[in-house]
């Protein structure tokens, strides 16, 4: 039998084991939810809300994932993480904001956490103010090719810093300045300024005149 010296006694082991449990509550909560579900046949309110959110904004979440991940495999992982976080978070949805705002907040926050984690391997990101306003060179007809245009749009999005990227993605999803402010936490005035700049960039990069951009 190994003799444990008094200095390495039970009290220190108990203290360490308590500290080890610091990270567990979220996982335990998740586990209990799953067990509850497996025993019952009816879908919970959380599941209903998730189904509603996916039906209404599932496509938008897919596009959002594209705005953060170029690589197909990573994009699928990100999308799965977003759906998981959304489902988990809806347990706490209390209707203080719309389901759309909630879904976008969760999705962008998950995506940001991924961007932060891999920030060191990313090229330098810029603000929307730093984007070049020059018109892309090349054949005009080529610019109207949908696939190339979509790829160019994605390239612009991937250049942007997280918050500016969010504003651009939400603008492209047709949210107005107030809704974008609600998701991002930026002031409506700040959002309006950024949206104005985004419109100018998009007009310069895609079109001959800003009037074509809504």
């Amino acid at each position, binding site marked *: 039998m190994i003799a444990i010296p008094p200095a390495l006694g039970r009290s220190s082991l108990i203290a360490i084991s308590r500290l*080890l449990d610091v990270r567990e509550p979220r996982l335990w909560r998740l586990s209990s939810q799953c067990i509850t579900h497996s025993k019952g046949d009816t879908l919970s309110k959380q599941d209903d809300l998730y189904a509603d959110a996916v039906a209404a904004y599932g496509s938008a979440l897919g596009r959002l994932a594209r705005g953060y991940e170029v690589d197909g495999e990573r994009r699928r992982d990100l999308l799965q993480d977003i759906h998981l976080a959304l489902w988990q978070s809806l347990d706490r*949805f209390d209707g203080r904001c719309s389901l759309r705002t909630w879904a976008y907040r969760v999705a962008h926050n998950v995506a940001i956490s991924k961007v932060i984690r891999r920030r060191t391997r990313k090229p330098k990101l810029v603000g929307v103010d730093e984007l070049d306003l020059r018109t892309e060179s090349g054949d005009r007809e080529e610019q109207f090719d949908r696939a190339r245009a979509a790829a160019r749009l994605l390239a612009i999005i991937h250049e942007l810093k997280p918050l500016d990227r969010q504003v651009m993605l939400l603008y492209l999803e047709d949210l107005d300045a107030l809704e974008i402010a609600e998701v991002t936490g930026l002031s409506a005035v700040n959002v309006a300024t950024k949206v104005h700049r985004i419109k100018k960039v998009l007009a310069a990069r895609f079109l001959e005149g800003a009037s074509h951009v809504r």
Partner: protein
Amino acid sequence: MSGEDRGDVKALWQRQQEEPQDVAVASVRRRALTIEATARRRSLVFRLSIVNNVAICAALAWLRPETRPFVAVFFLAVSLAQTEALTRNTPVTAPSDAGLMTSLAFLRASLERERAFAARAWLWFLLPAAIGELALFAGMWATGGPGLRVALPLAATVLAIFGFVLVRSRQRGRLLQNQLDELGKA
């Protein structure tokens, strides 16, 4: 692009070809269980490393009673570093209440957490580890083990690593502070 939406960038964005998604509630639950199992496995490996530390220290203290004070210091220091590693060195993930936080608040909280980690990593990990190593060297020297010829180069190596990590984490802290300042202006 077709004529009707030529130049309409929003339409271009919204009419992208959709990729298939598995969004069924059952699939999401399965993924949640998989992640939970992975976290449990990681936690188990970590706990085993603590048990390993306990076993080695206990065996040393039992076989060589004269080393007990040094072993005790080593054990406490390494246990502290292990515990800090478990509780603090977790990746930045969206919390379950992510829907309650605006992106600005979430980004700020994430950066502040990273900055705190960069600023205190030396205190949470390196200092206990260095103290543990020094206790080990002192124990070796006091009990007639390898002399200073071995202990000094080892101590110098530990200190060099300590210094390197300290400088790098301070650089990282400054970078994060700049990003936080930038967020403050948003």
